[in-house]
């Protein structure tokens, strides 16, 4: 080959390369009409009944404005939400968009390089409207989109309170002493004070996120115990289990608490089987429907137990995070769909389908007309919001948080036993996951 021929061939190859590169980059701008097929592993229905129907409608609406984009929604199961995506990571093959519980579970996949930062694809002007993005912020980037806010407070049966001579807190919140006094009155009146289900362990985790949080000063306070700088058996972290144990021993919970799972516990409240229960916005909405509206059902915040700086913090969380995976064939188009999910029409439709408020500053608050749900919305969007369970490694959540609650509710472990369980389980996690521990040590909260 002559030098001239070689040069011509080289130029031709460079041009071919440039054209090819341009051809690949073009879809990322979203300006092409090339066909795009995306798969979205979707989970929200358990949190917000109606979410699946909303997503079906949203995909159809997106198809109208982007006929070239086809989105295949694959609903995920609660039991396998983490494990299914972990399998995808192991196989290095997965969907374009996925769902995961916020903070710890999501960041766990970020640290496995399976997630793309959504803030690299969504304009800051858009993202400033998304609420609770701090739940998935790491290294200065936001790694997932929020869609809705779930708050959990105590719902109460007004008729049962009246029957037992219990007056709801005027300020919306009792002291712990007032709370126990009310439980005693209800029990004396033959009413189960608090109905719950902890067969799956999540009710215990809710007590941790509400009452356990109140002794802490920050999530950093918790992180210090997770990484081993503080001791979980210190009453500062686990002393509150004595209060829960005291309630169980006094018979303030339904006897079948270990036969019911979390949602069955809430259903028991809706069936009038107890005076109080934890409720998400969706559960409260259901109870309002079942028991006869806001004249029958009220809400109050968790009684004041601790004196830490987080004692007054709210607990609203985006619960589920939607993120772009590293396998996304067209990350920009995936981000465009997340942006579309936050368009005003979609936000309004979301509330219409689910009754759960959207995690977006542009959400039309006048859509919420029920005074009980308006009260919930106010609590969920005012002040610091932390769902403490999100700040635990998955293994610690499972082997300490969930298991400890079950041991207290089933009375198979004492408060001292479960405090030791927390310390032991966290220590086991640190030993078994030195690589994850490094990430947790580097995670400045």
């Amino acid at each position, binding site marked *: 080959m002559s030098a001239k021929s070689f040069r011509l061939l080289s130029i031709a190859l460079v041009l071919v390369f440039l054209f090819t590169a341009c051809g690949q980059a073009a879809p990322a701008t979203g300006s092409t009409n090339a066909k795009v097929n995306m798969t979205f592993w979707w989970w929200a229905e358990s949190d917000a009944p109606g979410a699946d129907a909303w997503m079906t409608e949203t995909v159809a609406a997106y198809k109208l404005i982007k006929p070239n984009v086809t989105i295949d929604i694959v609903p995920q199961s609660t*039991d*396998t939400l*983490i*494990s*299914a995506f*972990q*399998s995808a990571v*192991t196989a290095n093959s997965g969907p374009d968009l996925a769902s995961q519980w916020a903070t710890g579970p999501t960041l*766990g996949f970020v640290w*496995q390089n399976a997630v793309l930062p959504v803030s690299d694809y969504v304009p800051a002007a858009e993202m400033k409207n998304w609420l609770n993005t701090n739940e998935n912020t790491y290294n200065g980037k936001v790694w997932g989109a929020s869609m809705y806010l779930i708050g959990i407070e105590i719902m109460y049966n007004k008729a049962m309170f009246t029957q037992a001579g219990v007056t709801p807190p005027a300020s919306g919140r009792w002291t712990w002493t007032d709370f126990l006094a009310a439980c005693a009155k209800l029990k004396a009146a033959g009413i189960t004070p608090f109905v719950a289900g902890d*067969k*799956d*362990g999540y009710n215990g985790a809710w007590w941790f996120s509400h009452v356990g949080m109140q002794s802490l000063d920050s999530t950093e306070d918790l992180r210090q115990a997770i990484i081993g700088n503080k001791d979980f058996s210190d009453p500062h972290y686990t002393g509150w289990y004595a209060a829960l144990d005291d309630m169980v021993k006094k018979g303030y919970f339904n*006897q*079948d*608490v*270990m*036969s*019911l799972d979390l949602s069955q516990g809430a259903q028991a409240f809706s069936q009038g089987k107890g005076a109080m229960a934890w409720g998400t916005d969706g559960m409260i909405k259901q109870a309002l429907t079942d028991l006869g509206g806001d004249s029958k059902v009220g809400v109050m915040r968790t009684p004041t137990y601790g004196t830490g700086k987080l004692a007054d913090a709210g607990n609203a969380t985006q619960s589920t995070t939607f993120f772009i995976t590293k396998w996304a064939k067209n990350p920009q188009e995936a981000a465009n769909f997340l942006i579309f999910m936050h368009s005003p029409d979609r936000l309004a439709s979301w509330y219409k389908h689910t009754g759960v408020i959207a995690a977006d500053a542009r959400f039309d608050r006048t859509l919420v007309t029920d005074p009980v749900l308006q009260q919930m919305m106010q609590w969920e969007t005012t002040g610091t919001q932390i769902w403490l369970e999100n700040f635990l490694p*998955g*293994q610690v959540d*499972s*082997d300490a948080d*969930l*298991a*400890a609650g*079950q*041991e207290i*509710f*089933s009375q*198979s*472990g004492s408060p001292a036993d479960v405090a030791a*369980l927390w310390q*032991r389980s966290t220590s*086991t996690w640190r*030993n*078994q*996951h*030195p*690589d*994850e*521990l*490094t990430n947790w040590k580097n995670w400045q909260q």
Partner: protein
Amino acid sequence: MPEKKPSSVAGSTSRKIEPYLYLAPATIFVILIFLYPIVDIIRTSLLQNNPNGIKTFGFTNYTLVFQDPVFWQALGNNGKLLLSVPILTVLSLLVAILLFEHVRGWLVYRGIIFMPYILAVPVVGTTFVYLLGLNGIVNTLLHAAGLGFLVQDWLGSVKWVLPSISVVIIYREMGFGVVLFLARLMSLEKEILEAAEIDGANFWQKHVYVTLPQLSGVIEFFVVVELITMLSWVFAYVFTMTGGGPGFASTVMEFYIWKHAFAFRSPGIASSLAVVLLAVTTVLIVLQLRLRRRSLEEPA
């Protein structure tokens, strides 16, 4: 010795190779399906995490597993489930013998008893969740029968959860045992049983001294299969009925392996747990093979 012609040497070589060529596809299949996963699990169990994210080879995962109290509790729970094997075996034998005696409607009973075995375990597990809840059907019936003092939170109490799971496993596995024993009973020579009856043996004497010795081979086989089941095939029961709780009261090895592999993102720990379970199960498989060989050597 006459020198072989090259062509006959080549023919001889090809004849020697030929059987191996026929065997090759099956051998490759076995290696891919059985051997490769085992080798890969052992390899993964030796890969340990490090703070810098780089994996190195060693036995750290095994050390960590043996230091984990939940591992010992899970292994202990499997051990407790093994205790249900004798109950399962005796019950299966009793029912099989009763059916063998051609009680009225025995064909119908055989079908009914075998039916749970063909149901998927999650179906059985989910059904029993509703039956065994504190306000479930079992306790409701106990109350109705004036036996309220027997009411328990069968799946929600640490004390009762494993026995309750054992009962469900026995309920399902008994169908297999009954059909297995009944098949062997049907092949027994009737003359021997008739001779025992003529000699004055009653029902129990006939079956204890004549029938059971002839069933020894199949009983041994069933016991070993069920031992392996209790160690390695109870995940679906635990997953659907209790999720391993309360606390870790019903956590078994398989369930703990699953949690580490998929929920806790620790394939190394999961693999080392799997290798330990494999080792225990292998001992039982070797035992089974020895027993089967012995039963085959028994005179007809």
